[in-house]
């Protein structure tokens, strides 16, 4: 037997470990800042860069892509080498993965506070960064598959299947959802509009949760839980069902983010049915993890690593039962747009991703530095303060979500909305938001303890940059005697395995998305809906820049409680020129789809300067800079041209007359403001924003409203 000696690369694992801990601290701290701004809006220090609308995507990106992303790579780079009995395929690709990924995160941390965003949730980064993400992800995928192909262990263990599914699916999701036409160095418009954009975005958004936050971490669970408990996984059979069931079903469930919206009913039902079915494989996996500890529960009392892993797997179980529950239309009618969604994602983020990452970090560090963990006691403190933090976070925010949903829908005996003033509900929730921030503070404190413990552990040991190992080379004849068409046989065929995985994830996406794009009856056209005027286009871009979509939806659902509060329910045909769609997923403030014409221009001016002047008690941030900053009209031509490219029917040469048209509309708004006792210049940003807000949802209201809209090529 030809035994080969080789070395595992620990350097890149250490780099990812450090990045994970660092970004974990940053991501959760920014989250805490955002949480505090919900009851203390002045915490943005009146700066545009630290305003809720801009730091909320910073928080989500930092937690999802920086913390969990680095955590995923950390776990994969350690376990993959050992499961394959091979060093990573290419050191260059490993480091390209590390530095590239972290450079992307730094780019995100700079561009998001600057307001450079696409506004699509978890896909906010603009096109140059999107291209960089694609390059780095390809580097990771090649490195992963290259290592698998060069392995010395014939069978790919279950963890590797999950890693492969992650690499393939994230690539598909990212590319399809990021297709856009650039309109400047950091500005683009997606090729999809309205309902189609919404479907693609939530097909992406849902599966980013599935294939970025779930499948790689399931792979980690299948490796680190048996390692930490020193016993094999409860049922390998169950893990096969878990894997294929999960990756096949997950991809179909995206439309459950769009229930009762203008999305066609068949797509909504499909999303709901598949979401409910997801419980089966998810719970199969959760039970597989927990039952691995059968007969070893005494270890859980002693070992902080196992404590973290047990809570993580339990949180996975809770979140994957709750997710399908929320995907049932009748439950979603209450929960959607409320804090309930926030509670749900934090069960996953704080419990599943957070605690699993902490467990793996506490397990890896002593091994990287070949020493004992500096303080088991401190790790236990971290566990309890983290768990307490989760409870203080989750319980109030669940109460807040349900309260919010019920109050929105409450009618008096006479048939009027009981809480007709949206602010009454907002103010009622503030105590819960304060408690939530307390929970967040505990959780962040726990991460500080983690950092101290890891630092002292590193100090007390010596880093081993490479670990030497030996294994016989894999020979082609090794699989000669293998019985065909068994899963064991398939585990020895990485290429076939990858192709089957790709097929499994593509079926759902294609069945959902292809008919949505091709069958015209999905989006009935409305003759009165016209493209935005040049001033409105720039106003809409300001709405995107400020992250208004983070707190305001633009989708009135067909419920009496919503049509009473906001007006006529939203139709698919109203959004055909919305690149991107701005339906939102949260109503911290009221829906804005029918806000056009509801208030005079002066109301909007005063409201943006100081929201409490028009709405006493409002927690919306002040936007004084919109009143003073000059509107940048230089990119107008490029934006009109880009919008035409993605399908908005501006007539040829419209760019040349757009500036004059913009001026006329701006002057009209200035005149309106003057009648409201406000004097301002027509070249301020606020004018464009008012133009956009006053246009919202008016196309179907009166035929006259369309007269102000831009002409079309038709």
């Amino acid at each position: 037997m030809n035994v080969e000696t080789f070395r595992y690369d620990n350097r890149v694992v250490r780099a990812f470990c450090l990045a994970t801990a660092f970004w974990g601290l940053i991501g959760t701290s920014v989250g805490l800042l955002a949480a505090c701004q919900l009851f203390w809006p002045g915490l943005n220090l009146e700066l545009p860069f630290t305003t809720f609308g801009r730091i909320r995507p910073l928080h989500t990106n930092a937690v999802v892509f920086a913390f969990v992303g680095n955590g995923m790579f950390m776990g994969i780079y350690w376990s993959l080498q050992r499961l394959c009995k091979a060093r990573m395929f290419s050191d260059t690709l490993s480091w390209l993965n590390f530095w590239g990924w972290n450079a992307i995160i730094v780019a995100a941390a700079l561009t998001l506070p600057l307001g450079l965003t696409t506004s699509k949730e978890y896909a906010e980064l603009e096109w140059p960064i999107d291209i960089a993400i694609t390059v780095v992800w390809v580097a990771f995928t090649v490195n992963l598959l290259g290592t698998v192909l060069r392995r010395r262990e014939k069978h790919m263990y279950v963890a590797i299947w999950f890693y492969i599914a992650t690499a393939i699916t994230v690539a598909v999701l990212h590319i399809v959802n990021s297709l856009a036409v650039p309109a400047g160095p950091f500005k683009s418009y997606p090729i999809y509009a309205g309902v189609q954009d919404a479907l693609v975005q939530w097909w992406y958004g849902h599966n980013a949760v599935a294939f970025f936050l779930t499948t790689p971490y399931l792979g980690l669970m299948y490796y680190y839980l048996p390692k930490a408990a020193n016993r094999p996984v409860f049922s390998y059979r169950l893990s096969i069902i878990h894997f294929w069931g999960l990756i096949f079903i997950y991809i179909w469930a995206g439309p459950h983010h769009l229930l009762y919206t203008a999305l066609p009913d068949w797509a909504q039902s499909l999303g709901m049915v598949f979401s409910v079915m997801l419980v089966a494989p998810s719970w199969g996996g959760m039970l597989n993890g927990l039952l691995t500890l059968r007969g070893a529960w005494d270890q859980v009392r002693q070992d902080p690593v196992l404590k973290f892993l047990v809570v993580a797997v339990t949180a996975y179980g809770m979140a994957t039962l709750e997710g399908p529950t929320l995907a049932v239309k009748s439950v979603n009618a209450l929960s959607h747009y409320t804090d309930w969604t926030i509670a749900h994602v934090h069960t996953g983020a704080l419990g599943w991703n957070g605690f699993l990452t902490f467990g793996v970090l506490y397990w890896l560090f002593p091994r990287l530095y070949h020493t004992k963990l500096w303080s088991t006691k401190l790790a236990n403190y971290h566990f309890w303060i983290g768990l307490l933090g989760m409870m203080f976070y989750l319980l109030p925010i669940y109460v807040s979500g349900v309260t919010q949903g019920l109050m929105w829908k409450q009618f008096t005996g006479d048939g009027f909305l009981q809480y007709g003033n949206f602010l009454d509900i907002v103010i009622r929730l503030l105590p819960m938001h304060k408690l939530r921030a307390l929970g967040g503070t505990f959780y962040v404190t726990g991460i500080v303890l983690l950092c101290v413990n890891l630092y002292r552990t590193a100090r007390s040991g010596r880093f081993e940059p490479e670990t030497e190992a030996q294994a016989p080379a894999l020979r082609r004849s090794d699989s000669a005697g293998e019985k065909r068409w068994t899963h064991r046989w398939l585990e020895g065929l990485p290429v076939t395995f990858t192709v089957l995985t790709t097929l499994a994830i593509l079926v759902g996406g294609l069945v959902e998305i292809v008919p949505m794009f091709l069958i015209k009856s999905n989006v009935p056209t409305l003759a009165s809906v016209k493209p935005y005027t040049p001033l409105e286009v720039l106003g809409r871009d300001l709405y995107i820049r400020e992250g208004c979509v983070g707190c305001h939806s633009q989708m009135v659902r067909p419920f009496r409680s919503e049509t009473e509060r906001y007006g006529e329910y939203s139709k698919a045909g109203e959004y055909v020129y919305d690149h991107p769609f701005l339906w939102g997923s949260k109503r911290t403030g009221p829906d804005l789809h029918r806000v056009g014409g509801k208030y005079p221009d002066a109301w909007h001016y005063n409201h943006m300067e100081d929201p409490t002047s028009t709405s006493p008690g409002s927690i919306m941030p002040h936007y004084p800079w919109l009143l003073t900053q000059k509107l940048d009209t230089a990119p107008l031509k490029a934006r009109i041209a880009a919008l035409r490219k993605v399908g908005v029917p501006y007539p040829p040469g419209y760019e040349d007359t757009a500036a004059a048209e913009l001026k006329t509309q701006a002057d009209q708004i200035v005149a309106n403001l003057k009648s409201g006792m406000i004097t301002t210049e027509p070249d301020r940003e606020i004018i464009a924003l008012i133009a956009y807000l006053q246009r919202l949802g008016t196309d179907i209201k009166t035929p006259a409203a369309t007269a102000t809209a831009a002409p079309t090529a038709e």
Partner: protein
Amino acid sequence: MIKNVLEHLGGVAGYGIVSLCLFFALFAGIMIWTFRLKKTDLDAAAALPLQEPPDEPSAWENRYE
């Protein structure tokens, strides 16, 4: 031409039923397939992560940075 045909595809409402059947067939297939696998093979695969040599300090000497 293909796009033209697809644009007028009917029966979108049946997509739910078709997908349910597809899912059920796949899930049932995997269940049957999985339960016919040999226990010895499954146990061997489950033991893969536990094969590494234990982290003994004596075996790690002289390999520090």
